Structures are given as C-alpha cells and as structure tokens.
C-alpha cells in the first residue's frame, strides 16, 4: 500500500502514554490545548501494564496465599490451594481495569490518542510510524515522556530463560527455582512474591548489601524476612554467564574471586533501567543527550529547544512514576504559559517488600551534612496496638528533624503499610511541619499512623508508649 505523507497541525504532542505522558496530556487539555498523545504500545506505559500495578497485584496475591498457608492468626487453619493461572488472569483484569480507566479519562478530556512510534523530523514536527503508514504532525509544543527499559547485561543477554521483570510478571506457572540478578527493589519485591508462591529464590547482588540506597537498619529487617522465606541472598556477587538448556538455565557468578553456579528455571535480570532516548531522532530536533543518555532540562522540564519538554525517567532524578506525573503536570502548565516549576522538597520512595519499606526526604547521614544538629526519633511497631493486633509487630518509624527549628526533614518507615504511612510524612515535610506539630496532631486510635505522633514525641523526649533509655 502506498500512502502519501500528510502533515497535520496540533498544539501539543505528548510522546509516551505512561504515568508521565498521560498525566501531562490531561493537564494540557484541561488548560485548553489541543493534545495528541502518541503511544507505541499500551496506554499506561510500563507502570500500568508491566510494572507498578501488575507487580502489586501479584505481591498481594502472594501475601494472601502465604498468610492462608501459614496461618496469620493462630487458631485459624486453612486448606489453601493455588491456581496460579487464575491468579494471573485476575492480575490481568486489574491491569485492564486501570488502563481502561485511563483511556476513558483521555477521551473525556478530548485527548487524541495515536498508536505508533514517534520520531522527530524537526523542532516542530514528528513522524509517527505504524505498521502500515506514516503520518507527520507539526506541533507548537511537545512533551517527551518515553520512559525507560531494563538494562541488558552483555554477559547475560535476555533469552528464553533469562528474563526481564516483564516476562517474570507474566509467567504461566510458579517456577521451582528462580535466580535474580540485582538486589534492588524490583528484585526484592518479585523475589519475595515468588518465594511466597513456593519458588526457591536466589538473589545475587553486586554491592555488599541488598537495597543499597537504604539504611542498614532497614536492610537488616528485610534480610531477616528474606531468610524466613528461605530466599538465599548472595552479596558482592558478579554474574558471569548464563547458559540456557531445554529445561533450565545455569548461572555462574563470582564472589571474592571464587566461581559459583546456581541452576534455575529462570533468571531475572534487574540491574537498572536505561532511558528510552536513543530511538527518537532527537538529533533532528536539535536536542543533545548528556553522558547518561538523559535529556538536560531546566526547572520547568524545558529542553534546550524551548518548545520541547522532557519528563520522567528520561531526565535526571529517580525513575519513579510519581515523579514523572509531577513533572508532566509542570511541563504541561509551563507549555500553556503558567509559571509552574519543578519545586518539591521531597519524593517518597516505596519498596513493596515484606515488610514494606518507605522513605522520604533526607536520611540521618544526609541531614547531618545539611543541618548543624539533627534530632531523630524512633518508634517500634511492637509498641503500637494496631500493629500488634494485625499480627504485624515487625518494623519501626524513624523521623529526622533539624534540631534548631524542629522542622521534619526526613522519615523512614519499615513495616506493614509503610507505603501508606509515608504519605503523611511527605506532606509534613512539604508543609514544614515541626516535631511538635506532629506530636500535637490527634491521630486516631488504634491505627498505625499513631506511630507518627509517637515517634515525634519520642524525638521530643516525651514518648508515652515507650520507656526512655
């Protein structure tokens, strides 16, 4: 079929329909711009289709299964069976529900969605290629939100049994043995989930500790939990090669110069993500990447080309969906002429491990470098009524404040529902709340957030449910 090239005029083109791109598209449409969203695969991006949402569904299912099998509360015995295919069907239905929701929102905001791959052909024009045709769009503003993809190791090329998190999330059955290269948050989350489903999991981490970005007091708790689920963790391990055979894969690795090997049904390689900036024809737009493949942007997400913005995993900062969404809104507002800027005090980070881990703002060491004196408070889940009555007494809340002003500058939570508890602490930091403010705010009893109030009081030296040392 011969198709002529057409060029259509649009005010705003958003490239990429993930949590950065679709949010930017909706905000731009709310501000009166006529918006075209280009997505090459699925609306919702990695987050909705192959990341955050499906992994959380699987983690919840694994947790349910484990609790059922092992009995969360003494006295209740279950006979639990697992139909993993049905679990996967349910997980897929969760994804479908969420992506349909986004589709509906885009439609409701009159955002036009086009399927295809976008390439720049100039500072104001992209070409969108589909299987059958090419169509050009001339734009006034553009937001690039193409996200990132898993890094592939030269020594462990992806294959039938060497997989990315995408395939591991979609396995048709629970593997008997799963080896994971990379002890970051994806490795820990999926490793624990499959361990709960019954897999024998081995995690290889290159640095001396799993979750290297978190404090040792946090990683110790996770390490203990991994041991309980018989997950073998090898730190300081360098994966050397993976040899696939008909029914298994043999992974060799080196620790302190000694070579070891482990056999598994599958190897999950999760050693980081790289920005999707290499196949966009950015040269044609006059945009230069930095040494890391990221797009340099200003405080509004504007690239060196004034009408083109970039947000999310392809710009500096942590590769997190909520950061991408925030930046997407800023960029859309800036394009519409508002004076918005990327101006946050903190970004919360969550690991859906067992127990959950969440952190926001500075840790104690970082705070020590910024403020003359730092005040901290720590409160154990074991002293909280709700935590104990949930049979979830494992964990702690830690607050870090500037001693002079008492203003909260960082917080860490490990334990049940840490992912939800961190929200209050992020708000407290943005609102410049002091330890006193948090201690004087009535928290409902009996709930986990009571611990926030208690931790603040602990930092102030007057905790009620804790004896002073």
């Amino acid at each position: 079929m011969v198709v002529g090239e057409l060029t259509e005029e649009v005010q705003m083109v958003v490239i990429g329909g993930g949590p950065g791109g679709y949010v930017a598209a909706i905000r731009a449409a709310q501000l009166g711009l006529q918006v075209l969203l280009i997505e090459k695969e699925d609306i919702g991006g990695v987050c909705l289709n192959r990341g955050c949402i499906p992994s959380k569904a699987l983690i919840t299912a694994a947790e349910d299964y484990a609790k059922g099998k092992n009995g969360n509360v003494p006295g209740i015995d279950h006979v639990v069976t697992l139909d993993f295919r049905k679990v996967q069907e349910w997980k897929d239905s969760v994804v479908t529900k969420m992506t349909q929701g986004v589709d509906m929102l885009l439609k409701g905001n009159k955002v036009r969605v086009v399927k295809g791959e976008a390439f720049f052909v100039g500072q104001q024009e992209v070409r969108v290629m589909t299987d059958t045709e090419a169509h050009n769009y001339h734009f006034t503003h553009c937001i690039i939100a193409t996200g990132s993809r898993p890094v592939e190791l030269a020594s462990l090329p992806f294959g039938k049994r060497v997989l990315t998190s995408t395939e591991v999330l979609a396995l048709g059955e629970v593997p008997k043995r799963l080896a994971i290269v990379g002890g970051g948050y994806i490795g820990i989350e999926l490793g624990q989930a499959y361990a709960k489903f019954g897999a024998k999991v081995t995690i290889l981490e290159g640095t001396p500790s799993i979750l290297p970005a978190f404090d040792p007091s946090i990683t110790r708790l996770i390490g203990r939990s991994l041991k309980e689920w018989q997950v073998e963790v090898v730190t300081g391990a360098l994966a050397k090669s993976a040899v696939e055979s008909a029914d298994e894969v043999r992974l060799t690795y080196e620790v302190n110069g000694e070579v070891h090997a482990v056999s598994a049904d599958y190897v999950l390689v999760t050693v980081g993500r790289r920005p999707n900036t290499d196949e966009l024809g950015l040269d044609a737009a006059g945009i230069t990447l930095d040494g890391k493949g990221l797009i340099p942007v200003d405080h509004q997400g504007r690239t060196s080309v004034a009408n083109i913005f970039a947000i999310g995993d392809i710009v500096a900062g942590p590769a997190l969906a909520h950061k991408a969404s925030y930046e997407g809104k800023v960029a859309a507002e800036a394009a519409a002429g508002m004076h918005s800027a990327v101006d946050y005090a903190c970004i919360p980070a969550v690991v859906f491990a067992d127990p959950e881990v969440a952190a926001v703002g500075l840790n104690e060491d970082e705070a020590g470098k910024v403020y003359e004196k730092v005040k901290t408070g720590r409160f154990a889940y074991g002293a909280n009524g709700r935590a104990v009555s949930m049979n979830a007494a494992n964990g702690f809340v830690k607050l870090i404040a500037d001693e002079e002003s008492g203003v909260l500058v960082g917080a860490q939570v490990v334990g049940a529902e840490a992912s939800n508890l961190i929200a209050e602490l992020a708000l407290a930091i943005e609102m410049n709340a002091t330890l006193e403010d948090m201690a004087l705010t009535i928290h409902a009893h009996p709930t986990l957030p009571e611990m926030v109030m208690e931790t603040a009081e602990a930092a102030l030296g007057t905790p009620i449910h804790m004896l002073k040392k």
Partner: protein
Amino acid sequence: MGVFQFAFPELGEGIHEGKVAKWIVHEGDFVREDEPLAEVENDKAVVEIPSPVEGKVVQLFFSEGAVASVGEPFVSIETNALTSDDKVDVPKTPLEDAGLANTVHEVKQAEAVKVSETTPNRAATPERVLAIPSVRRLARENGVAIEEVKGTGEHGKITREDVLAHLANQGRGEPAISKSENVELPAKEAVTKPIFASAQEEIVPLSSIRRSIMQAMVKSKFSAPHVTMMDEVDVTELVSFRNEMKQVTAARGVKLTFLPFIVKALIAALKKYPYLNAELDEENEQIKLKKEYHIGIATDTDRGLLVPVLHHANHMSMWELAEQITALSTKARSGKIKLEEMRGSTASISNIGSAKGLFFTPILNYPEVAILGVGRIRETLLRQDGEIVDAQMMALSLSFDHRVVDGAMAQLALNEIKAVLAEPKRMLMEV
C-alpha cells in the same frame, strides 16, 4: 568552560517584568560584554538588554512574545567560550544537585554485574528555604524568587502574607492569585499564542503597554471625578502666523505644528490658575501646586498610547518646544523612549485633531488635575460685529478634576487658553 546564567534584570524602578519583543542574538552566537541581547518591551517602552559578560550564547530561555520576570533565567552564556564544544549545559534540577539516584545507564560489558539497580530514594536540596508548596506557587506566579522573600514565620518560614508584602514593597499591582478550586487558564500575560482560536473570534493577549494603559485609565476614571469643558476658539491669526513661520522653521530643519503654540497657551493658563497644575494628596488632605510645568503630550504609537513629557516646558522657546516635541514623538513611535522621558508630567495635552476629531472627553493623566484636548481646525463662517467673516475655528476640550477645581475656574482657564491662541502676539508676553 563556565556557563553564566543571566537572570532577567530589573529594568527600572517598579518594573518587574518585560515581554521579549525581539532576540538580537541567537543560540550559538558570540556576544561581547554590553552588546545587546534582546529588545524587551515593558509597560512604557522597549529597551535593549545588554549582555553582562562576553561569551557564546548557549540558551535563550524565552521565546519572542513571552513575558520574563525579574530573576528568571533569561540567557545562559558560555564564558571563555569559542570552543567548538556545543554541549548545552542546562541548569541542574534539585535532584541532580543532591547527587541522587538516577536512571541507571548501560552497564559496561566487561564489568558483569556490579551495578545493583539503583533504588529510588529521597530528594531534598540543602538550605531549602521554609515555604509550603502553595506559597511557592504564589511566588512563582508573581515572578518572585522565593529565596528573596523575608520570612516572618517561625524559623524564617515564608508565609503567604510575606510573599504578598514582598510584592507590595515592589510596588506591584494586584498579585495573581490562582484559585485552587479549579485549574486556571494560563496567566494572561504569559500566553504567547492565542490558545483558543475559532472562526468567530480571535483572542489576542494583552501587550504590557495595553495592560498598563488599561490600569492607568481605570485608576484615573474611578479615582478622579472629572468634567470636560468644550469650547471653540478663532485661530485665524494663528493659522496665518504659523504659515508665515513655516518657511523660517523649515530653513532650520524644524517641523512646526500647532502643538508648541498650544503648549504655550496652556502654560499661560496654568500659571494664571495654578490649581490646574497641581496634584491632590488625599491622604494628607492637601493640594500640591506645582511650580514647574512639565507637559505630557499624548502620542499615538503602533503599540498603544504613550505620553512623553516636555520637562520644564515653561523654560523652552518655541523653537525648543517644536524640536523637543518632534524628538520625543519619534522616540515614542520607534519604541526607543526612556522611562524618565515619560514620567513627571504636571498637565497634559491630547490632540485628536490630527485624526480629524473635534470634541471629546479626555481622561486625566492621573494624578494630574487637567488635560487639554485639542480638536481639528475647521474653516467656517463667523458673524462678527454684524458681518459674516471667514474664520478658522479650533475645538478645545478641557477635562479637570472636580475635586480640586470647580467649573467656573476651569472655564476661566479655558478662556485664557483661548485668548492666547486667538491672539498669537500675546505669546510674546508669555515667553
């Protein structure tokens, strides 16, 4: 290579933003110190912004037509430049500054697995001033750098009131406060292109000059109750005198219009009736009578109404008046007029005659007390001492602030203006 971030500078007292009318340099250009970077239009004029350093222009942060506020990054210039390295250095985000985890980049082949997946983590910038997100937004929307606001809250926390007070100190008008209930349309000055366009209407954002005219007119019309006296004067003699003088002035290269005569006549009346060359100080309940005569001349330009001022017009000869009027109006029309040249008038003249208008009700150039509107001169027949004679009649409309001056005095002043214009010889007495 150092990249100098040039923040949008203060253009003058009380001027906090400007519209980028034209970029004189482009990205990649080499610019010397003090060479112009851009023409920027503010409330009153178009000014050139000189480069503070020498180097290569790396990035222009605004497109033409966009409004820049003081302190916003304006241009980045690579100093000690002239390398062929074209790398664009963009301001770091707070995250980068804090050295936080990034998207991981490709792992070197030989290294095997050393890199663990970077775990996402915290972000905070050292020495971040205390201010909550909504206050930060308020500051941004009003072009205020939050770091420059003095915080009165606990531990120097910057409150909403602090930002508003900072704005008030800067002498700015009403701050733009966005409603949090729903998303607002982009701030009016910031839109560079009409966003909604349909066949039925075209939406044109206000230029800064238009906005300033709007504010000045509202202020005047709603603060000073003014009344307009209308009258005609026989300027037959003046017309023939000016025709005689035309050749003399042309020989000197000066264009002689009626305006210098009208300025002279107005000053004569103002001297006789000083309450028309005055300012009402409501707060202290007093009237300031001005002893100098700075006459504003309302001038129509492509960009809108501007009022250049003939400072100390009472000391000027007719030659000087003619020359100054021509010089100022040329500057105003080409956008090269300076702010000082548009400030300090004590009374004004608005000429609608050049557009063939007759009578009108000029709006005071607040806080002045009087403005003289001049209409066209028309030939007519006049009954004079029982005879019908040819006459050239000029239309005059004098608006005055009725809080300061009453009708009778205004008419007497107008009579004085008429008397001088009717009998140009009297101008000799007024020199």
